[in-house]
């Protein structure tokens, strides 16, 4: 177990190192006009050069990269080009927003997806199963920005027109303002993420439940006279959840790096929004930090998934 963790962490570090170089190279070869933008329209070439020097953009790429890695290892991710704010501060302000969004949505999509999947699997090919399949595929096909805008149109705009103001048009209220405003601002984003993601869980749970319910030990459990509900939940669902756990880890990991689209639609100042803003302004320190953060989340999620695998299924040995 310990050796497994060490090996996977090392591999993850290698992956992150490759990605950091990739992103760095990407922005080095790009024509950068950051210095020119900062200097203003009427700046002399000397001013532009001075700004380039101050930002360290006049150094050769390998020195810029080494400088970045050296500082990053000490926990310093540099400063925002435009506002002189430490990148770590930007991330620290954005992280709670993304975290609130993803955790709430994840609970919703996991319960919705697994519940629907089990209902489908109990009576395969029934009209309930078909209905749930169509429901799942409908939202699976739905681009999240479209669903977000539709929810805004019907649940914010039309309801507000009708005199019922439950949902705000967007934005974020921190938990310190109280749970109610916090949840009010997040319900529509949660729904958007959850409905779009739940489909995969419905299909996964249905598939693996059908596999498991065909096993001999389920027949044994039934013939012992164990109530059906208990057979399904205790004996069936528990071992059917393994592929679901994998998918869940990967999805949560990917989203913690920023739910770019949902955050954009609902103007949530999370990590996804921060990275989009940084990208459009070529704000390199923020971009590298957010890309690395997103990749780190995926790497860690993968390791946790593999450990969970061994916990859920005693047959799996980690090596």
């Amino acid at each position, binding site marked *: 177990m310990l050796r497994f963790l060490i090996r996977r962490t090392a*591999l993850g570090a*290698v*992956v992150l190192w*490759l*990605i950091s170089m*990739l*992103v760095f190279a*990407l*922005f080095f*070869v*790009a*024509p950068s006009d950051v210095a020119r933008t900062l200097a203003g329209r009427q700046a002399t070439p000397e001013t532009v050069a001075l700004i380039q020097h101050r930002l360290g953009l006049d150094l050769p790429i390998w020195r810029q990269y080494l400088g970045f890695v050296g500082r990053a290892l000490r926990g310093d991710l540099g400063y925002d080009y435009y506002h002189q704010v430490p990148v770590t501060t930007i991330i620290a302000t954005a992280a709670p927003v993304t975290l609130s969004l993803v955790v709430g949505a994840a609970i919703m999509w996991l319960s919705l997806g697994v519940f629907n999947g089990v209902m489908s699997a109990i009576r*395969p*090919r029934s009209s309930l199963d*078909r209905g749930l*399949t169509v429901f799942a*595929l*409908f939202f*699976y*096909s*739905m*681009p*999240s*920005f*479209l669903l977000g*805008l*539709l929810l*805004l*149109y019907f649940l914010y*705009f039309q309801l507000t027109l009708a005199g019922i103001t439950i949902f705000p048009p967007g934005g974020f209220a921190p938990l310190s303002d109280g749970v109610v405003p916090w949840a009010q601002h997040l319900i529509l984003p949660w729904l958007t993420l959850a409905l779009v993601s739940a489909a995969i869980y419905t299909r996964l749970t249905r*598939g693996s439940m*059908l*596999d498991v319910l*065909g096993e001999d030990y389920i027949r044994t459990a039934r013939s012992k006279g164990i109530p059906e509900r208990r057979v399904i939940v205790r004996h069936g669902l528990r071992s059917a959840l393994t592929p679901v756990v994998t998918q869940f880890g990967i999805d949560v990991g*990917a989203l913690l*790096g*920023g739910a*770019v*689209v949902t955050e*954009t*639609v609902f103007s949530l100042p999370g990590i996804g929004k921060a*990275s*989009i803003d940084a*990208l*459009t302004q*070529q704000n390199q320190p923020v*971009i590298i930090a*957010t*890309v690395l953060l*997103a*990749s780190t989340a*995926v*790497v860690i999620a*993968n390791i946790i998934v593999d450990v969970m695998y061994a916990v859920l299924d005693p047959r799996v040995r980690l090596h």
Partner: protein
Amino acid sequence: MSVDPTSLETLGEAEGVSSRGPDALEGKAIEGRSPWLLGWQRLRRDRVAMISLGIIVLIMLIAILAPLAAVVTGHQPNEQYRQTGLSPNGLPLGPTSHFWFGTDDLGRDILVRVAFGSRVSLLVGVVSTGIAVVIGVVVGLAAGFFGGIIDTVLARFIDVALTVPFLLVAIALVSITGPSLTITILVIGFFSWASVARIVRGQVLSLREREFVEAARSLGASDPRIMFVDILPNVLAPIIVYTTLLIPVVIVVEATLAYLGLGLPPPTADWGGMINDGQKYYTTAWWFIIFPGAALLMTTLAFNLFGDGVRDAFDPRSDQLLQ
């Protein structure tokens, strides 16, 4: 929808039996049914899949015949009808007999633009998926077949590609190179191959131990021949299923890039881009979002339902699930 699934299954089984026991067939020439033919016959009886296929063909026709929409309505896709197509205070016009789907913020005909937008979605969907599948198959075949150090390196490569935050890097690339159709197609294609490679690798790992590979090798077949002639046909079914299901994913990614303002440069009509333009007006001009949105959703839904049918018909594992 109303097809009774059990009758479907018994039909399929009856055929399986009769092709094995040809005596049951009277007066008909005996013909062997290949797995492909059987799969196609199963698919043809899946009403939902066939309706979806019909919708896909329809959308393809719309894409090909998009100029016809311009002729019928008399409106060009990028022409701004500022006199007739905007309200007196310069806002988009709702659906009228003149503009069936209404107009956008620049007074352009949304119907014509939705028709032209299908070209971008389908082109990117098909070409990017093609690129991803070709790369994925070659990498997956090589990794699974050669094993050893090649597999270790390629598998690590697949890991990196799966870890990269795709949307962020895609946006970064597009913002650096500037948006264009080629860039969109290439970026999506080059970031979608890893999952194909992983599936193919897994299958090839077990296939290469089988007797027919050994037989081919003892007959003196070269590595490329074994890979592409002997092994590849055996992984074709999952590849086809995955390809059908990858197309709608790619279409959504393209629309998402366009929605985030990184699609094709204006004034090209593009569903995601239209929705991006329209969201500023979502309280005043619902048609600006609803029509391109409906077109997009219909396309991805048709591909997903069809892909689901293809999986049921061609992927042998799904047969087990039905029992």
